[in-house]
């Protein structure tokens, strides 16, 4: 019974992760923008000069990032890489890898979240203890 419950919960967890990953993949595609072209043009705009080989550069990096492949294939590659926690390069911050950026942020996110959770737990605990009625109902009077 308990095993079936855990299996069901795990299946729901996988479904949610898959849905989130799928949305994460398709939502940026809806904008219709080519991220490589946007990145190169942003740089050209700052310099006021469009490099002679802009189109070749777009092709080169589309190929490098697999953006020249059909969408279904990009999606499958993305799911495979994501399941291995391989997020490849950040196009916006190239040549930094997404893993590099996430690993810098994770300890702080976890730390802040952890502290917040502990503090809120502690505050709630104090509040319950200080409210005799609540404490009785929660079964932790005394």
């Amino acid at each position, binding site marked *: 019974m308990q095993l079936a419950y855990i299996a069901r919960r795990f299946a729901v967890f996988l479904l949610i992760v898959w849905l989130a990953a799928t949305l994460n993949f398709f939502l940026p595609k809806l*904008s219709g923008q080519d991220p490589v072209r946007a990145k190169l*043009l942003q740089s050209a705009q700052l310099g*006021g000069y*469009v*490099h002679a*080989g802009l189109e070749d*550069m777009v*092709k080169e990096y589309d190929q490098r990032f697999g953006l020249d492949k059909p969408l279904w294939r990009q999606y499958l590659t993305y799911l495979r890489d994501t399941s291995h926690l391989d997020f490849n390069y950040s196009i916006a911050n190239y*040549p930094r890898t997404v893993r590099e950026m996430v690993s*810098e942020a994770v300890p702080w996110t976890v730390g802040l979240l952890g502290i917040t959770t502990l503090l809120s737990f502690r505050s709630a605990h104090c509040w319950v203890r200080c409210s005799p009625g609540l404490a009785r109902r929660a079964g932790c009077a005394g």
Partner: protein
Amino acid sequence: MSSHDMGRRAVVQGAAASTVAALTPIGLATAQPAAPPRNKTMTLVWGGREGRWVDFELWNPYSIGANHQNGPNIIYEPLAYYSAFADKTYMWLAESYQYSPDFKQLTIKTRPGIAWSDGKPFSAEDVAYTLNSLRELGPKVKWGVDVQQVVKEAKATDANTVVIDFVVPAPRFFFFMTYKYDIGVYIVPKHVFSGQDWTTFKHFDIAKGWPVSTGPWKVTDASLQQKVFERRPEWWAVKAGLAPLPALERTIWLPFAGEQAAAQALITNQLDASTGIQPATFQTLFRGNPKITTHSGQKPPFGYVDWWPISLYVNNEVKPFDDKDVRWALSHYIDRQQLIEVAYLGASQVSSLPMPPYPPLMPYFDAVKDLLAKYDTLAFDPKKGDALLSGKGFKKEGGFWADSQGKKLTLDIIGFGASGPAIGPVLSEMLKRRGIETSLSIPPDFDNRFQKGQYVGSIYGHGGSITEPYSTLRLYQGASMAVPGAHLVNFARWKNAAFDKITDEMYVTDPNDKPKMMELFHRAMEIWLPELPDIQLVQNFHRIPMNTTYWKNWPTAENPYVNGASWHLTYPIVLWNLQPV
């Protein structure tokens, strides 16, 4: 302090008080251990993304993620500098150069006695290595295609001689490599870059002394908040007698975090130079700190003419703007003086041709005076505009022009950056009042749409000529036979085979052959002006407030040794010219 620690600190600061951090980057960032005194430090604000240097680890300027404007411009020295304001070339890592008579070979003599910051000698090998790598890498890196198109091979024949063979005559190649504005080839140290993947190599490790440079600056701190450069007293150029040792010992570059923060920091003397100040804010700046000046002093236009004259582009492939008479009608409907008065509070200038009125280009402006008298690109003449549209079968109904089918003459304009929101609304209203159904938008994917030709009207500039007109003419070429595999800009999507041929002829002409250049330019303008592929509007201005509390000898109209943009490749010239007050 490691960059990693700085990254963490940024996250904490951002989570704790992102608004405060955004408004007070100056106070946060100038707290440096063992900093030289304030009067030995020059602090400026420029660029960044959302108030952060997201590229702080990236000092290899060839990577597509890098931007030389954010610091590499003062790290990598060039073969030569060129100041368009002074019309002066400063031979730098190169001592001299010589083309073969057919311009298919270039021999460069590099200076002896130059060393990289890690002590290794600089030599012709570094130049040959840089060029050959660019040729091999092509579209993988910046400038790769430009080099690949023309360079067959670069050889270091001795420690101070590089011989470059071209596949086509290339009389402008040395100038292409020369630093001016945002164009120039960065010479990299072969002993560091060799064996590295140029597309991902960052060239950043402060403990190892990276980035390695021949210049007078070393990076001592780079983080999301700031980039700090310290002076290298052992700079070779001092011994060579080419430049004085910079008087400033440290320069701190902070990312732009909003006009208000920058203005306050300038007024309170925390900043020495900045960007992102609008014309309307300058009077406040001068009142708050009378020591603030600009290129034009404390008078409008509060800056200098950039190399990027602004136009109203119309897509020449979209009807009815494929018709030159319709384009000319639009031109006649625009009151450029009013545009300047309203959009820039009078702090701008009109632009008659798509190149800036820089001293070396003035003879070319003079050469087409006769044509400009006939085809006045600045004329405000609504009646002539009306006549042109009527001549094309348009009729005015209900205050708007419509074609014979009753379809309104509609112009949807897109814009971006500072120019779109400044000019766009005024221009749009001006054209509406003359009967053109005009709309304006500032789309986030402006660049993509503009570059792909997915637009009808657009406000944009011209990154073309500085010394002679070839680079501007090239912007309008529809096809090129002279440059094999050439990639063309042609934002206006205008096509004219005779114009293309003249531009190709100019490409193989020695730019120093002035009579031939003038003749070709005149012939090209005989085609271009009647056609008017895009509609000339105003000059683009760089409005840079410069603080004279601690530093003097900034470049100004009275002292125009170079333009004062910290993001341009010539900024090292400013840094060695600044003097303490």
